[in-house]
């Protein structure tokens, strides 16, 4: 079937074409200006960060050869030819990894409990008063904006070297992060049950317990598990500042150029992180499969 395409009279077409061209030109101009501003910002940033392309190109070979070296044993053989020699310290590393996992577990649980206690005050729909809400919100914000490792640095001085500083640092950071997420879940909760329970004359506490909590507990657990995953990574570097875990061993190996140890420890960390990610993912899927997937 032939369809006739009607072409507009040239005058009408010209105005339309002009309008189109003008719109495109305006868009292009905007994009060009944005790109130029961005490039200028990048250039200033490059000056500020002392980027030296010469150094980069001279040493980029070092970066590759670094991986070559960490994959070579002292005897000169490749690491995977002699796994026993490569993982000579596996027992010690596994113990430290266990410590790392415990640090993140205890830190996450403590942080989750504090976040749980604070989040009802921070959520808009359940907070007893705007002042309380404001103060709690600022507190949580502070706890999550200051990086965990900065807390760890300070705690190492206050509590002494050791895993305790790491646990407390992670707990504070987790309180801040989870407190916000928990409060958001509560803000999304249905308020009708609360009205129902309040109409029976119940106190604020009972309203939270019987109306809000049943709606939100699955979301809480899901976020806490996710946070645990993140905290395992975080705990693996806590040792850099002396706050316990495998990080201490890693930083020593890197600084003292024990090349094959670096790769062995990295491999154990990566494998552990994988296992934790997969198992918490599985656990979340099993526990709250339908609620979390939207």
């Amino acid at each position: 079937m032939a369809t006739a395409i009607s072409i507009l009279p040239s005058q009408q077409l010209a105005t339309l074409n002009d309008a189109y061209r003008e719109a495109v030109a305006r868009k292009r101009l905007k994009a060009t200006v944005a790109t130029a501003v961005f490039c200028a910002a990048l250039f200033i940033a490059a000056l500020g960060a002392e980027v030296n392309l010469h150094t980069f190109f001279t040493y980029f070979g070092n970066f590759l050869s670094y991986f070559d070296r960490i994959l070579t044993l002292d005897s000169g053989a490749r690491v995977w030819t002699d796994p026993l020699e490569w993982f000579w310290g596996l027992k010690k590393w596994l113990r430290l990894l266990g410590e790392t996992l415990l640090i993140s577990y205890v830190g996450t649980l403590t942080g989750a409990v504090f976040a749980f206690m604070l989040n009802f005050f921070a959520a808009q729909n359940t907070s007893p008063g705007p002042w309380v809400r404001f103060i709690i919100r600022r507190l949580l914000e502070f706890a999550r904006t200051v990086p965990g490792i900065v807390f760890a640095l300070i705690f190492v001085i206050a509590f002494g070297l050791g895993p305790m500083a790491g646990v407390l640092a992670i707990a504070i950071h987790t309180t801040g992060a989870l407190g916000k997420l928990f409060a958001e879940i509560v803000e999304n909760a249905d308020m009708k049950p609360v009205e129902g329970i309040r109409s029976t004359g119940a106190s604020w506490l009972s309203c939270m317990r019987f109306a809000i909590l049943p709606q939100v507990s699955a979301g809480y657990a899901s976020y806490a598990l996710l946070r645990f995953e993140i905290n395992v990574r975080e705990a693996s570097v806590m040792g850099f500042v002396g706050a316990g875990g495998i990080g201490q061993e890693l930083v020593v190996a890197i600084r003292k150029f024990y090349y094959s140890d670096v790769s062995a420890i990295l491999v154990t960390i990566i494998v552990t992180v994988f296992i934790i990610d997969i198992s918490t993912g599985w656990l979340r899927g099993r526990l709250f499969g339908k609620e979390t997937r939207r």
Partner: protein
Amino acid sequence: MSQMPKPDTAELRGKYPGVFERPASARLAMPAMIAAALAIFVYGLVDLDFSPTKLITGMSQLGWITMMMIPPNPGSSFPLYMQALGETLSIALLGTTLAALFALPVSLLAARNIIPSNLIRFPVRRFLDSIRGVDTLIWALVWINVVGLGPFAGVLAIMVSDFGAFGKLFSEAIEAADRKQVEGIRASGGNALHEIRFGLLPQVLPVIAGQVLYFIESNTRSATIIGIVGAGGIGLQLAEQIRVLEWQKVSFLIQMILIAVAAIDFISSKLRFAIIGQRAVA
């Protein structure tokens, strides 16, 4: 008003045994899980050398430190700190941008709708995963070994660790893109590159731009801490001042970080709204 008939409990019990007598396993699952969680917690406390005395002395120390922090005071090093903050922001901006540039082509390789073959996609994905498994701080230590102390090592560290994250996020954005535009380009005779340029990129770029902005935001935080291991920026100053116990300077530096992060948050959320539009965010 009519009275509701009394429910026949026995009959209901017979009909819905699951409601009235939940199996013991279902009733005990929750308490058992809580008990197990608590047991691990207590074991952790013991294993990690927690003790009430340590906690109390530490708390009093911490209280003392907090007292010493007030009021925040930079002393005479304010210009130095401003410069360090600038360095941190530069590290975040540059590292994130470079990571995005490098990650874009690689993410195409990891996207299912571009590379249907598992043979390429699987190794690329595992490669990105292992990069992400290593913390930014570790990358910073490695780069310090390679290019020496200084902010440049920080840029490279952020670049590498974000490369892993971007590779994954971008490939997900690409997989979520609509097929129809691509088919349209192919129908009008475009080749594979045209399909990507005119069919995919216009859909994907706004999403990617939003993610990059978000990462610049979160990298401002990362960039503050990589200085702790010597990779430049404000973290270096912070770690030094903590080590020499100059608490007033420490609190001033922390304040600077908080303000800078809040400012970047504000700017980037404004920009993100402008790029993706209100609709996509809501």
